[in-house]
């Protein structure tokens, strides 16, 4: 073979082909071109193959760089000489050139580009079969260390792009795996090269790059966070173009892309998040049925973005959320409510308030539209919803209460809700202190105060933890006495003695209010059942009057000065008519230590009662007969009415029974601390004094609470 080739090509030509000067090598190549042209014309392809073998083995594989350069330009010349017949020799010609792309000499790599350029422009479409290898080589050369090689690769790349886009032999299906494999390369030049190819192929109307977008979409999104501004810009331009095509195209695989977009929406890079949320926004508008299975994932991407630090992202995310919410999806068509609820539940734990609020909006919306399906998942989501009641944000708590209220439209769910609340308050006293009032008031608005209080009372009546029951009742009672939202409830209670509804409500609450003597007394005052109130007071035993009791009594005395009890104070203007009220108030006065602030307050109030004047008139005229008449009349009317409406003796018995339980409970506790009883008494006194101090600090609380209630 070598001997044959040597006889075909003159020695002088071969020497020039390996010369260090480019011009001489080119002239030698032109000679070879002429020789090959003649051989092709006469059909002597065996000799042509011999020449190619010579150029390959003795030149391109030579240890000398100039020989390798000569071999490359020689192979190019052979191809030019062959022209239309070059295709049959490509198998010999192309591989050596491809190998030269990896040469350690940058100049050899440069001339390899030039050689392949000439080969490609001769055979054009026929060299598509080598495309994968050429693409791989171009990919590497685009990141070459030598700038000249990069320029040469760029020029070659443009020709290859032109050939590929005009060729019917190019298979996009075979190219995509090649592209996808390289999309994760971090080199900026390679990335630029890849985006260039994507853009070019996409610009050809007959190449369906859109159909393969899911294969490299993630790679493009990866480039959005590149450190180079130019690459970010190019990737963004490519993505914008694709998004525009998606809007115009009826056939797109939304599902696979949705997965990528959802993942990228959680990127740490701001630009990536903005781009992906923008795409998600368009998908929600365009996706139709295809997108339904991905609603949950999309929601999972949107909700965090609603609280993004970037304004643009928040705006798009909010818009997308509204779009998604406006869609009337059908569970029978693949809409997975469980998945949506799962996402909303997860985002309910978000550290961002806006995200938590939107999660609750989703709960509310789903509950309204798909109540049956929603309730089927209640076991999974009820606890998180209850936990949300402890949220630092009032807005969140109010929203979650709305959800709870809707859930509680069925009686058994309502029962569950109240039970859970009591249980939660039992386990978390801090929650009761911080959110208790807010929660109860909101529920009263949403579900009706009477209904809520009756349910609380029903459950607390049988509460095993007597201390907690007492605490809970006191809390509820305080809310009852101070909330503007419960004004109607108080009005109803005032009519206890004359209205059957009021009577029922009174008896319902009384059942659990018994846990607290002071709560019971205040309930009687609200109900204007003053006769029963004094009976309760008189039934109190020595052990009932403890520090806790005195603290509560102190609070009640101050509450009597609030607008809620304005009616009661006005009734003092007719002491003769409201004898039992006077007795009750004096009873309370007697229970208070004289040195306490509450004692002074109440005594001052009682001094203003015009009782002495009545007494003076009576004594000045006919004291005994008149007093007796008034007393008898008042007693008769009052007793008759009370006895007919409510069985107060029975109520008194109920109260005493409950208190007996509390006494037994307390006695048991005391016995366990038998040895320290003396100390306990001393400590009780100290505790009371401390409570007194706290009571003093709480003097300002009622007015602020009242003013808030008013507003």
């Amino acid at each position, binding site marked *: 073979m070598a001997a044959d080739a040597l006889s075909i090509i003159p020695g002088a030509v071969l020497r020039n082909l390996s010369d260090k000067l480019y011009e001489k090598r080119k002239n030698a190549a032109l000679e070879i071109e002429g020789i090959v042209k003649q051989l092709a014309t006469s059909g002597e392809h065996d000799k042509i193959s011999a020449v190619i073998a010579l150029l390959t083995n003795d030149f391109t594989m030579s240890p000398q760089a100039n020989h390798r350069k000569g071999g490359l330009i020689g192979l190019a010349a052979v191809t030019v000489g062959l022209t239309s017949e070059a295709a049959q020799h490509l198998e010999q010609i192309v591989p050596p050139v491809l190998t030269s792309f990896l040469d350690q000499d940058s100049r050899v790599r440069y001339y390899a580009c030039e050689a392949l350029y000439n080969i490609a422009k001769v055979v054009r479409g026929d060299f598509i079969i080598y495309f994968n290898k050429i693409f791989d080589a171009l990919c590497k050369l685009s990141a070459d260390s030598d700038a000249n090689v990069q320029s040469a690769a760029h020029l070659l790349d443009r020709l290859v792009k*032109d050939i590929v886009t005009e060729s019917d032999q190019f298979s996009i299906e075979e190219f995509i795996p090649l592209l996808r494999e390289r999309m994760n390369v971090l080199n900026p030049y390679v990335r630029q090269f890849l985006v260039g190819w994507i853009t070019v192929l996409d610009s*050809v*109307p007959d190449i369906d790059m859109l159909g393969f977008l899911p294969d490299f979409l993630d790679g493009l999104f990866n480039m959005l966070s590149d450190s180079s501004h130019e690459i970010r810009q190019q990737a963004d331009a490519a993505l914008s173009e694709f998004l525009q095509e998606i809007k115009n195209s009826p056939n797109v695989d939304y599902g696979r892309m949705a997965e990528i977009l959802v993942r990228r929406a959680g990127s740490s890079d701001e630009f990536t998040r903005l781009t992906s949320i923008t795409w998600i926004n368009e998908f929600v508008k365009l996706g139709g049925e295809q997108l339904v299975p991905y609603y949950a994932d999309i929601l999972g991407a949107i909700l965090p973005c609603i609280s993004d630090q970037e304004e643009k992202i928040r705006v798009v995310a909010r818009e997308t959320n509204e779009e998604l919410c406006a869609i009337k999806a059908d569970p029978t068509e693949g809409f997975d409510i469980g998945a949506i609820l799962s996402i909303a539940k997860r985002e309910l734990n978000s550290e961002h308030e806006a995200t938590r609020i939107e999660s609750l909006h989703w709960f509310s919306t789903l509950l309204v539209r798909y109540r049956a399906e929603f309730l089927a998942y209640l076991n999974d989501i009820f606890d998180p919803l209850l936990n949300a009641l402890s949220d630092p944000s009032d807005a969140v708590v109010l929203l979650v209460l709305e959800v709870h209220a809707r859930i509680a439209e069925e009686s058994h769910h309502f029962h569950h809700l109240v039970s859970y609340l009591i249980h939660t308050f039992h386990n978390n006293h801090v929650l009761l202190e911080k959110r208790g009032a807010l929660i109860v008031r909101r529920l009263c608005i949403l579900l009706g105060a009477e209904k809520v209080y009756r349910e609380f009372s029903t459950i607390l009546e049988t509460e095993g933890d007597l201390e907690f029951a007492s605490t809970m009742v006191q809390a509820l009672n305080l809310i009852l006495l101070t909330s503007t939202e419960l004004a109607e409830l108080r009005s109803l209670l005032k009519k206890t003695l004359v209205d059957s509804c009021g009577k029922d409500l009174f008896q319902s609450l009384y059942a659990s209010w018994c846990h607290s003597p002071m709560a019971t007394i205040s309930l009687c005052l609200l109900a204007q059942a003053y006769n029963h109130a004094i009976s309760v007071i008189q039934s109190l035993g020595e052990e009932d009057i403890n520090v806790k009791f005195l603290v509560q009594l102190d609070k009640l005395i101050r509450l009597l000065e609030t607008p809620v009890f304005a009616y009661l104070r006005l009734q003092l203007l007719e002491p003769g008519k409201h004898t039992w009220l006077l007795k009750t108030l004096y009873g309370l006065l007697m229970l208070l230590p004289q040195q306490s602030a509450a004692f002074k307050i109440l005594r001052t109030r009682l001094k203003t009662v015009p009782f002495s004047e009545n007494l003076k008139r009576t004594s000045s005229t006919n004291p005994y007969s008149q007093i007796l008449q008034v007393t008898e009349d008042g007693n008769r009317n009052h007793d008759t009415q009370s006895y007919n409406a409510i069985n107060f003796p029975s109520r008194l018995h109920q109260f005493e029974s409950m208190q007996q339980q509390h006494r037994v409970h307390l006695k048991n506790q005391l016995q366990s601390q038998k040895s320290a009883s003396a100390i306990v008494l001393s400590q009780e006194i100290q505790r009371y004094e401390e409570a007194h101090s706290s009571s003093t600090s709480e003097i300002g609380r009622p007015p602020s609470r009242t003013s808030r209630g008013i507003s």
Partner: protein
Amino acid sequence: MDNTEECNTRSSSLYSMEMLENEPVDFENNSSLWLPPEPEDEEDDHDGALCDEDDGEDATGEWGYLRSNSFGSGHCRSRDKSAEEHKRAMKDIVDGHFRALVAQLLQAEKVQLVDKSGKQSWLDIVTSLSWEAASILKPDTSKGGRMDPGGYVKVKCLACGRPSDSFVVKGVVCKKNVAHRRMASRKEKPRILILGGALEYQRISNLLSSFDTLLQQETDYLKMAVAKIKAHQPSVVLVEKSVSRYAQDLFLEKNISLVLNIKRPLLERISRCTGAHIVPSIDYVSSQKLGHCDLFHVEKYVEEHGTAGEGGKKMLKTLMFFEGCPKPLGCTILLKGANGDELKKVKHVVQYGVFAAYHLALETSFLVDEGATLPELPLKSPIIVALPDKPSSADRSISTIPILQMPTASSPNDSLQAFDVQTDGSTFNGFQTMDQTMVMCSPEYKSCKKLGAGSAQTESAHFNGQDKNIACLHGMVPWSSTDPLVQQSASSLCHCPSCSRDVVNKKHFEERQPETSGHTLDNDFNALSAHRTNLESVESGHLFAYNSENGDKIRAKLSVPLNVQISLDDDSSKDDSVIKKDEIPASPADNQSILVSLSSRCVW
């Protein structure tokens, strides 16, 4: 008026005698014959106008003018009416025959004449599409173009929509697309530039390129090239080979739609239809070489019925349209409404259909030009013609058999009519019948030759026609040296039988060369025998009577001297009751029509 007509007849007779004696004098006499009287001008114009509308050729107008001038006003009116009716009747028959042909072709391809829904008929669709395409087409052979319409009509298949959605595009449709997704795919009134070759810099395949120079100069060159093209403001640029992507982007910036890699034949077709010249390089671009059409657009179709040969897979097909091309040198038929395999079959039928429709249109035009008419017994003729069609359909083209049969059937009918008229003894009717017979013989004679040859080439037909005419004239000349009256009567008899067979015609021409009157008479009798074989529907009694009648005519004419005959004419004007005297005046009229026909042919 009658006297005037008789005087004209006599003078015409005298003139014809003079023409026979001296050729130069004949031409002079023809000129004088063509001077039309004023009352006849209107009728002539009317007839000419009709011819113009039908054919759009001035020569035909002249034909009509000449033909109408050769008869009296009464005859002219009658002829016009029958001509119109005959044209309409002929068209109906041609349409019917074409439809039958299409039906047969569809059945041969095993395509249902009616599609599955039963609402749309491939037969109707193919028929109308073929006629429409054929009517659009006007090949230009003056510049070396081909006569075959197949080269000018393309059929494209789209496996979508319904069969009735199929339509004809007056222009070119091809499977190409603009080079860039964002290039305009719709242009109204586009200016089209066609560039043969490629638009690249130093990417010529036979030159070794050096990167050093390429890197510096490529973009500059391409900018210059595109700017040069842009200067002529084309809106669509078609390129035979490749265009560098850099140049493509420049075209995109300038809002020029670019289509590249168009094969030469398609490029030439677009060039032919739009009038755009194919310039070899940008150095030859000029505004005068831009083409035009009404609308350029690219459409995408989803072939929901499944494409051919791909297992019915639904494909996206892109077609590019050049609609409303100014030159009638090509059109495209788009077939829709079935899967690819079925559309291929329909495509074959359409291709045959267009071929047949085009040539049928030419034949019909030719027959009308020659003044061919249909028989006056339309009800009977089709019945007679229908029978022979079936057994011979395998051997002959359906489109030619019916027309061939009609003249054959018409001759015996006319003869029968003549016989009946003779029995009635009406001179006027007899004259008219004889005239119609002669008129019908001439065009039928030519059409028989053309159709008999089975050739669809008009030029060939024309050439053959001319030969026949020359032969006739040549045959007539020698007879004038002998007894002219006897010769003329003999030729009048010969024309009738010559229509029936080519063989008889050949014998007739051969035997005209000898100048023996005895031979002539023998040939006449042979012709009558041949004629008899075609009278299948005539009873033997009638045949015998007809034969004896002809014999009597001949003997009477032979026995009377010329001078005596003339004097008898004079006598006949005085007394109408004598039978023999009635027969004599018909002869001069017959001679007159023969002479006029011959002179018309000379002019043609």
